[in-house]
């Protein structure tokens, strides 16, 4: 653990407000992005990221430095997202959410192609299809894929975050890849022609 991080943890555990602000400023984008990648909704992403910071604020006294601070916070976000997904599934709100999500994607400045269906290229269509396929994965598979591919975390780190072995991470990731492979098979030239 870097000395800077140790010092930050010491300040946090001493109850320094400025330390907590430093922590938030340094990690707010990462936690927001992770929550967004897992949930696909900006409002939920902010909600979850803030909830994670509040959890950190309340339980920093229990943090013993066995994991990196960032990994610990990622784990909090992942758990919160999994709980959120579970709750949404239970309350049968996912259908409505997907409609809202589609609308949001269409309005998002970064998805210019989606804003104008006529300009959607084949590559973009495949990309969107694959991204939607991620939602069909099991929560754990999707989480692992997002952490590895989108967040670029090493497999060993993902194992620590999810408290599973590196072997399990690899096998779950392999299954995720296989499912995405099935989606991509739909666009194979031989089938299209």
């Amino acid at each position: 653990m870097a000395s800077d991080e140790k010092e930050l943890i010491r300040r946090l555990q001493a109850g320094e407000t400025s330390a907590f602000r430093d922590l938030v400023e340094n990690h707010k984008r990462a936690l927001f992005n992770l929550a967004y990648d897992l949930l696909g909704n900006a409002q939920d992403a902010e909600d979850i990221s803030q909830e994670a910071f509040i959890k950190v604020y309340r339980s920093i006294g229990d943090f013993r430095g066995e994991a990196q601070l960032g990994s610990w916070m990622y784990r909090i976000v992942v758990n919160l997202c999994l709980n959120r997904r579970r709750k949404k599934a239970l309350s049968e709100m996912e259908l409505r959410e997907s409609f809202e999500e589609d609308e949001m994607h269409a309005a998002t400045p970064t998805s210019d192609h989606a804003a104008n269906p006529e300009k959607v290229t084949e590559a973009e269509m495949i990309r969107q299809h694959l991204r939607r396929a991620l939602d069909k994965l099991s929560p754990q598979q999707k989480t692992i894929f997002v952490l590895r591919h989108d967040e670029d975390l090493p497999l060993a780190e993902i194992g620590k975050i999810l408290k599973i072995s590196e072997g399990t991470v690899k096998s779950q990731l392999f299954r995720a890849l296989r499912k995405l492979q099935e989606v991509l098979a739909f666009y194979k030239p031989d089938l299209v022609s």
Partner: protein
Amino acid sequence: MNTTPCKKYEAFLTAKIFGDLRAAEESKLQAHLDECRNCRNFLVEMEDVLGKIGTPQRPERSEHFWESYWQRLVQRLEKAERGAPAQDSVFGRIAEWLREKWLAHPLFVPLARTAGILGLLVGGVVIGHYWWPQGGSSEQQIAQLTPPAIPVAQARAEQWLERSKILLIGLVNEDLSGEAKPDFSHQRLVSRTLLTEARALNRELDPAADRQMLQLMTQLELILLQIANLETEHDLSAVELVRDGIAHDGLLLKINIAELAQQNTAPKKARQKSPEVL
């Protein structure tokens, strides 16, 4: 048709795709790939998948959003601290444990329902016992029904005023024209008693709050002194002087006004005065 890789090399292939393969594993996999067309194809297909899925497209948030993030977080934290019990408190942990262990239990709903009904019954009995008016009047109920208490000195001053009034009325209405000579010994005695009490009351009453009462008492004390000093049973001229003094000063009227004023202001003063109350 998708390519299915060899099961034995799934983990290596996955690690290779994401660049997590160790050096020792790399050579082992490479040796296999040189011989296995399926695994080679799978590798190519997976690289294609990852290339096509690309990086995640996230909504662009304005600078204002990020600048005000801290403020929103602080507000939320304050709200959370004020509202729900903290997760790391004893009650928070118990609640969390209950949620995790019992909410999903099949017996939770019937048990909770039964507990709720029992709780209502017990609550009703407790509320009825402690809050519903009982047959006998308790000290608390009497206290609630009793008008606001009046400070001791003020109450004694009112009584003193009332007794003085009675004395003066008796003296004013005394028939001095009759053949029988009036005896003022009783009035003298009462006057002396009232004067003694007046001295004590002068010390006890609040010069600011009871200023009007003290002024009236001073005037009355002069009259009472005259009554107390009536020397003989037949000192009619002295009695006439006292009567004139009562009339001149309008003492009876002033006493009536003071009593009316006391009736109106007594509850208010009772709340403001010292805790020594009747």
